[in-house]
């Protein structure tokens, strides 16, 4: 293998090695393991940057490490595809991971599971890398599940906490439900195309009847819904906040949850050949975006607020890929990864400062105490609410513009309203946490986080500041589009540009939305012109609905979990023990009864013996003569 293939395989190799090392010999490494782990991931970041340059100035390639499975006509190898899409993802993943690793060194300081933490974090990075570069659906599925496992184990990292291990289990199982659809999709795809290799599949898609394509696309999308926590499988993500905050930053904001978007983009051929499926993607995305933002309005747990905002941002991305503007989707994916990672890290730093306090109602006035955190957080917030010149503005605006121009006005309107809500809840958080009068309990010693945590935050903030400019000039002549679009050449364009409104008009609207959202928050929480309580009482039912997360968990628990458990108990206690095994034992006892009867015949009386005998003779004679 030549140089580029070598580094292709070195990129995942380092985190994998890291996993083995810290996993097996963690207790000999003690504290060093954190630094080493970060170094390993850093190396693969550098390597992927190198690879990025190579690919940027040449063309993509695929390389097989070894043949993995072949049975009958089924063949799959461990193969990597390196094209612009995967390389961008690669750089993003490794980059964010590196920063989060460094941050974690400070955050997890002195935790007894230090090495364990880093080994699993490395394993996650490895799996994510493989997921991104895998060249066939089987391999994709493998690491699709592998990242799920990593998130399971990392959410439940503090396994003594019941809530934590419950959350982990919930995440795994809900993902499994999505993956069930994904797997069936793969089966159907294999049945129709007899292969799982991307290129082969894509080349066959145009010749496949539309309804089959739609079925495949929807089934695959089910997997994406699970992984990217879209409605109705979103329930696991908020609970996942039980895990350590850096984990939330890396897995549940930047990388894993965006795998769904990546997958849809990667299979753009399939989706673009099935308008219906794309429609579904758009609808789900739009709904989730709104729905999550609505819930986020009234939460008080900062991590949960950020988590719900993640949901709604993912909704935006699905809107993008749903209307077939994949570059926009990926662009938002990247920028979101940056600023959402930033928000989580800062939130973590707040926690760290307040020694684990998460409730907004017990915060306030933190700005003076922890400046760096506050500033970086605000940058993140501005990016999230799409205020120029922060990255969020460019990426989100690109999506909304495309949505508008392709003629999905309703979706566009929803998007804009969601933007308003987004701006509101994030600034509600900022104001309550950093500015309004302090409600901390005095004996709590609030302190700024150490440098090892703040530096990554600052770096991310800077990136969030600049990365947006990849998105200019707007629309299809932007740098990013120009770079990435080559991978989406063979996508089937199914809806023409309905109208091309001038970009400044659309941007203006969304910026206004953002600003107004901030302003409302300002009025409510800084100026106290209207007390939140009044509004709360005004829209009591709406408020409760939002506050209780639309009761989704309760509904699931009541409609699905409880009846199933009852049914299972019935199966075991009645079906198995009583009916089946009862039948078996029943036969046995029946024979026992016969035995007693049979031995009654042997009653010891000579008379009856002779009688039996002669009856026997009589019967014999009867058998032949009378009959």
């Amino acid at each position: 293998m030549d140089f580029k293939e070598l580094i292709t395989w070195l990129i995942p190799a380092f985190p994998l090695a890291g996993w083995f090392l810290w996993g097996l010999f963690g207790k000999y490494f003690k504290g060093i393991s954190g630094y080493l782990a970060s170094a390993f991931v850093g190396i693969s970041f550098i390597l992927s940057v190198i690879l990025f340059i190579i690919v940027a100035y040449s063309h993509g390639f695929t390389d097989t490490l070894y043949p993995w499975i072949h049975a009958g006509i089924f063949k799959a190898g461990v193969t990597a595809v390196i094209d612009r899409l995967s390389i961008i993802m690669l750089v993003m993943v490794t980059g964010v991971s590196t920063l989060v690793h460094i941050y974690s060194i400070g955050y997890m300081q002195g935790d007894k599971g230090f090495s364990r933490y880093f080994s699993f974090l490395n394993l996650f990075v490895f799996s994510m890398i493989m997921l991104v570069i895998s060249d066939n659906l089987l391999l994709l599925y493998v690491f699709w599940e592998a990242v799920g496992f990593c998130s399971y184990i990392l959410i439940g990292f503090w396994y003594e906490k019941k809530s934590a291990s419950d959350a982990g289990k919930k995440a795994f199982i809900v993902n499994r439900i999505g993956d069930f659809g994904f797997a069936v999709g793969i089966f159907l795809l294999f049945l129709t195309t007899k292969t799982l290799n991307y290129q082969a599949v894509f080349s066959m898609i145009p010749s496949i009847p539309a309804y089959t394509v739609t079925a495949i696309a929807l089934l695959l999308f089910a997997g994406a819904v699970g992984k990217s926590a879209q409605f109705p499988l979103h329930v696991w993500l908020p609970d996942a906040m039980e895990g350590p905050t850096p984990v939330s930053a890396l897995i549940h904001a930047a990388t894993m949850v965006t795998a769904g978007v990546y997958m849809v983009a990667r299979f753009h051929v399939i989706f673009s050949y099935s308008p219906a499926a794309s429609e579904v993607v758009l609808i789900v995305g739009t709904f989730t975006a709104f729905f999550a933002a609505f819930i986020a309005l009234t939460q008080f747990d900062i991590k949960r607020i950020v988590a719900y905002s993640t949901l709604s941002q993912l909704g935006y991305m699905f809107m993008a890929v749903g209307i077939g503007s994949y570059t926009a989707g990926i662009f938002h994916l990247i920028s979101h990864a940056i600023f959402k990672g930033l928000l989580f890290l800062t939130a973590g730093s707040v926690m760290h400062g307040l020694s684990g306090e998460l409730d907004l109602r017990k915060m306030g006035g933190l700005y003076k105490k922890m400046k760096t955190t506050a500033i970086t957080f605000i940058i993140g917030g501005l990016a999230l609410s799409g205020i120029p010149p922060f990255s969020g503005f460019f990426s989100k605006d690109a999506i909304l513009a495309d949505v508008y121009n392709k003629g999905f006005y309703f979706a566009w309107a929803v998007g804009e309203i969601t933007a308003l809500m987004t701006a509101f809840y994030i600034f509600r958080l900022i104001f309550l946490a950093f500015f309004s009068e302090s409600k901390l309990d005095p004996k709590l010693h609030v302190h700024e986080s150490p440098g090892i945590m703040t530096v990554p935050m600052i770096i991310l903030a800077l990136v969030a500041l600049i990365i947006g400019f990849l998105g200019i000039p707007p629309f299809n002549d932007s740098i990013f589009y120009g770079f990435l679009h080559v991978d989406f050449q063979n996508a089937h364009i199914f809806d023409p540009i309905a109208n091309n409104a001038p970009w400044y008009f659309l941007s203006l609207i969304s910026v206004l939305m953002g600003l107004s959202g901030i302003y409302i928050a300002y009025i409510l929480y800084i100026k106290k012109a209207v007390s939140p309580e009044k509004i709360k009482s005004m829209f009591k039912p709406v408020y409760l609905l939002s506050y209780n997360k639309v009761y989704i968990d309760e509904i699931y628990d009541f409609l699905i979990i409880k009846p199933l458990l009852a049914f299972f108990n019935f199966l075991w206690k009645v079906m198995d023990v009583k009916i089946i095994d009862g039948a078996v034992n029943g036969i046995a006892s029946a024979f026992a009864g016969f035995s007693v009867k049979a031995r009654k015949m042997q009653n010891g009386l000579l008379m009856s013996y002779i009688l039996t005998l002669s009856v026997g003779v009589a019967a014999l004679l009867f058998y032949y003569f009378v009959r």
Partner: protein
Amino acid sequence: MSNYLILATIIFTIGAAGVIIRKNLIVVFMSLELMFNSANLGFVAVSNALNLVSGDIFVIFVMVVAAAEAAVALGIAIAFYREKGTADIDEASELKN
């Protein structure tokens, strides 16, 4: 000859009935003898009818055997009487089930 055979059958049946219904040991033995002798009658009749000799030989053998059996029977009967103090065969009901 069939008439003889019918007669023999009747005697045999009487003997069997005797074995079945009578309780006293000795009577049971006698009924057994009756059964044997009905067979003898049959043999004699048949060999007479088919003017063969083998039937008569058989009869002699049967008589011998019957004698031997009677000896054994009485031996057992005495032993039984010693232990149970009665000759009622319903007493013999220790072995059961």
